[in-house]
C-alpha cells in the first residue's frame, strides 16, 4: 500500500512514520503534488501553530492539493483543525473541508488546565476509523484549541465541555488526539484507516 504523509513545516512526523512502520507499511513523506494525488491514502499530521502553518500551505499550493484529494485522508491534531473553516489560533481561515470553526478552550474552573494534555476517553460512532469500537477508549490528547460537536463528529470527548475528538465526511477523516501516541487503541484506529 502506498501511503503518503504530507510534508510541511509543522512538527516532527517520526512518531507517525514509526506507528505506520509497526503496522507494516512504509510511508513516503512528500509535498509533491503528483505523489500526493497518486497515493492510496494520505496522512496530514501536525504539531504547530495554525496561522503560520496555513501561510506555509498556501505558499506551497498544498492548501488546494489537500482539499482536492479523492482518496482517504487522515488529519491528525493540527491537521484536523486545519481541515476546518477557521481557527481562533492566529485568527486564520483554514481549508474549509469541514464547515465548523476551531475555538480556544475557555477554562471554567480552576482545575480546567489548558492545554488539555493526557489520556481522555472518546465515545465513537463505531464506524470508519472506529470500526469495532464498542465502549469508551482512552487516547492521547495535547491541544489548546478544539472543534465543537457538529454534524460531522465521529467521536466526542469531554474536557471543560463536550467537543469533537474526531471528524468524518466523505473521504476525509480527522482526529484531535494522536493515534500514533495512543498505544494499542491508537494502533487499531490507524489500522482501520489503512483498511478503509
Amino acid at each position, binding site marked *: 500500500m502506498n501511503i503518503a504523509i504530507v510534508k510541511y513545516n509543522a512538527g516532527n512526523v517520526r512518531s507517525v512514520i514509526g506507528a505506520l512502520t509497526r503496522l507494516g507499511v512504509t510511508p513516503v513523506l512528500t509535498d509533491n503534488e503528483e505523489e500526493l494525488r497518486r497515493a492510496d491514502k494520505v496522512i496530514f499530521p501536525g504539531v*504547530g501553530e495554525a496561522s503560520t502553518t496555513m501561510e506555509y500551505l498556501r505558499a506551497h499550493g498544498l492548501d488546494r492539493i489537500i482539499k482536492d484529494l479523492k482518496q482517504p485522508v487522515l488529519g491528525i491534531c493540527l491537521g484536523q483543525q486545519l481541515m476546518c473553516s477557521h481557527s481562533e489560533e492566529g485568527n486564520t481561515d483554514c481549508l474549509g473541508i469541514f464547515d465548523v470553526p476551531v475555538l480556544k478552550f475557555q477554562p471554567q474552573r480552576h482545575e480546567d488546565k489548558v492545554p488539555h*494534555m493526557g489520556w481522555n476517553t472518546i465515545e465513537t460512532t463505531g464506524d470508519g476509523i472506529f470500526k469495532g469500537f464498542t465502549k469508551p477508549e482512552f487516547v492521547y490528547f495535547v491541544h489548546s484549541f478544539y472543534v465543537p460537536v457538529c454534524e460531522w463528529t465521529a467521536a466526542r470527548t469531554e474536557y471543560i465541555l463536550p467537543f469533537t475528538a474526531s471528524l468524518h465526511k466523505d473521504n476525509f477523516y480527522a482526529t484531535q488526539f494522536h493515534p500514533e501516541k495512543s498505544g494499542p487503541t491508537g494502533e487499531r484506529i490507524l489500522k482501520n484507516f489503512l483498511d478503509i
Partner: protein
Amino acid sequence: MLAKRIIPCLDIRDGRTVKGTNFVNLRDAGDPVELGRLYSQQGADELVFLDITASFEGRKTFTELVERIAANISIPFTVGGGIHELKDVERLLNAGADKVSVNSAAIKNPDLINQIALNFGSQVCVAAIDAKQMPEGWRCFLNGGRVPTDRMLFEWAHEAQERGAGEILFTSMDHDGVKQGFANDALRKLSDELSIPVIASGGAGAKEHFRDTFIEGHADAALAASVFHFGEIPIPELKQYLCGLNIPIRL
C-alpha cells in the same frame, strides 16, 4: 474523563538506564528501549528519559536512542538533560521526542522557555524544577541539586508558565530517593496556583504515595523511577489500586 498520569522516569548514561538514590549512587537497570516498551505494555501513560551523559559522544548516542524509542514505543515521551539551547531542542524533537524538559539551562537563561514555546509550541516544553525546603522557603537548585540558585520555587514556576512552559515537573530534593511520599503541600500550592499541569516527582515508595499526591497534592501526573525499575511497585497493580479509589486512571 482526563486521567491522572503515571510516568516512569529512566536516567540514561551512555545509552543505558541508571538510577541514583538522592542523585548519587547509580545502579544499572537495563536497555532503555526494552524497559520503555515493557512500561508501555504495563500501562505507563508517558515516559521520561533523562540523559545524564556529559560527553559530546554521549549526546550523539542519546539522540540515536531517542530515534529508536520513537520507532518502537507508541506512547508519548519526554527527554531531558543536556539541553542548553534551541538547537538541542530541535535535534531531540527531530529525533522523535514529544516533549523536552529544561532545568538548569532555563534557570540560567529563562528566555530559552520563550524560544521553545515560540518555535515548537508550549506543549513540548516541560519546565523541570529541583527544589529544596530552606528556612526562607523552597529554593531552586541546579545540576541535580548541588548548586543553590537565587530562584524560589513558586515565583520561578509562575515565571516559567508566563514564558510559555506547558507543564511543570517539580522534584523535591528533600523527598527524592527517600521513598516516604511526595512533597504534597508544595505540590498542591503549585497545582492550585498554576494553570498548566504539574507533575509530582521525588518520594514514591508505596502505592499510597501516588494516591496522596493525586488527592492531597492535586498533581496531574506522578513520576517515579526506582520503584518501577526494581519491580517494587508493578504499574498494573498501582493503576488497579488507584482506580479502585475512584481516581481517574487509564486501564
